[in-house]
């Protein structure tokens, strides 16, 4: 049972990331990478529009009973996202004028459309 619950959460997370990526594309950004990993951890989405590069963390929840998904991003996690962004830039030949850390909260209710909350420049 434990593994099926984990699987369900992973599936929810994947779906949330898909929703977030679609949201980014719809808002005019280009997705450069998804689920990029290194020894520091994982970046969910790297996206770009013009001179602006966004390193995006996606948080997905099925309900807001335990708070908004945005609240799942702790200051510690935000600090790690900064380090991840630096690592990604070091390993890729992209030189954007501005680098931003964004968080996208996705709520996927049992019924109805997913709700997306995009917070820019959090850290």
């Amino acid at each position, binding site marked *: 049972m434990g593994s099926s619950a984990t699987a369900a959460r992973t599936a929810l997370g994947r779906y949330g990331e898909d929703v977030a990526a679609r949201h980014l594309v719809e808002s005019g950004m280009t997705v450069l990478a998804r689920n990029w990993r290194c020894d520091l951890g994982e970046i969910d989405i790297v996206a770009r529009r013009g001179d602006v590069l966004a390193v995006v963390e996606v948080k997905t929840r099925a309900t807001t009973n335990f708070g*908004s998904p*945005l*609240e799942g*991003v702790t*200051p510690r996690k*935000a600090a790690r996202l900064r380090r991840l962004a630096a690592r990604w830039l070091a390993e890729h030949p992209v030189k954007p004028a501005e680098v931003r850390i964004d*968080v996208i*909260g996705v709520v996927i209710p049992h019924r109805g459309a997913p709700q997306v*909350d995009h*917070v*820019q*420049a*959090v*850290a």
Partner: protein
Amino acid sequence: MSLGRTRAVTLEGVRGRVVEVEADIGSGLPKMVLVGLPDTSLNESKDRCRAAVINSGETWPNRRVTVALSPASLPKSGSQYDLAIALAVLAAAGAVPAEPIRDAVLLGELALDGRLRAVPGVLPATLAAAQAGCRRVMVPEVNATEAGVVDGISVVAVRSLAHAVALLRGEEPPDDPPVEPLATTENLSWQGEDRWSGLDFADVRGQPAARRCVEVAAAGGHHLFLEGPPGAGKTMLAERLPGLLPDLEPEASLEVSAVHSIAGVLPADAPLVTRPPFLDPHHTASIAAIVGGGSRIIRPGAMSLAHRGVLFLDEAPEFACHVLEALRQPLERGSICIGRAERSATFPAHFVLVLAANPCPCGLDFGKDARCECTQAAKRRYKDRVSGPVRDRIDIYRKVEPVRRHEVRDELGGVEGTSVVASRVAAARARQQQRYSGTPWRVNGEVPGPALRATWPVHATGAAWLEEHLAAGHISARGADRALRLAWTVADLRGDDRPMLDHVKIAYALRLSEPLPAAWPTDLPLAAEVA
């Protein structure tokens, strides 16, 4: 619009300062930051406000919320900012119109379910708001009568955050339960608040001289020292002194109410203190209880709560020495300045001081055949506990002996009650007010000796008589000044324009506990008839 702005008040002593409360909703992860030197109780406001907003059916913004309290360098404490912070955030989020609260002052602590709680100090806060030019305050319903005392400002009474939000949106307010008043010690007082209401001066039997001392103390605002054995009636006399004082004038009433409001002892149904207060702290009271204190929020002590009233220290020598010494500053200046590491506060402390003491530790050292067995050293120690500098500031000194049977018999039915004496006191006070109009003083007890001698000298015969006693060493120079003030009060009680020799003689007797002439000023022939 992501900026909300309103105002609140921070209190330093009895003075309030208007504080601007700004809320900004910016990009960032959900977080609330409170800047502007909040202390712990104010920092906890973040969590109270958030819970109250959500439980009132409103939405807390899922963004970085920054609340700034300015002036930023002024330390702030207390929970009365909750309402201002919550509504500033809601205004920033666009949930309530921003314009109506921009120039209003909002006061009140929030419960987690959105109810408002009463806060202390609403009266001085409202006064400060009015002085800063605010036209509207929003306060917890139970504090509304208190705030309503201030002229020229409209008071909005609210029961809960939802109530306030509905009023701002122009909707029908919800039917919330009324705000509970602050729990004060008076709620627990088994004697009730009317402990002193039934006291009459006629209850005191015998003691004609001591009664006159109390009357003079009330008329001229003179400090009084009563010394006598247990059961002589010292406490009875002192408790009846406030009844002789006239009602507080509007200005004094506001001052007193402001102090009581900060102490949280102002009853909700009677927001204005109109009668002179009477405080009789026990002799085990600490210096903070008498003087006032506290590390962050500095609260007034008994001497400030007795402002414009009477502070009675029964068994004065039993009080801790440093407590008695702390009386010196207020006796001199009419105010007390309390300094702490983070801040200092000044409270008014202008009172009539009544000290009562036994003649010696056993209390039996009185009369011709004294049965006292105290050693001289013990008596000396006991007397020295009330130090010279404190004694020096006391105008009237009176030894009170137990009432004798013939004294009671003589005066059957002939004792003056509170109303008779109080009307004499009121007339005497009216004369003083007229004489001292345009000066900082109100009563004889406040006028410094040099000013009194220069501007309002007594008749030459009286002055010469006092000079003789001064030369003979019967009275000190400072004591002579005190006697001059008392002479004026005696003259005022009688309705004379200027103290004559008789008045000075009575004053001398009041000062040194000598037998008073049987004829009180009212019985004496008028000065005009003598001259």
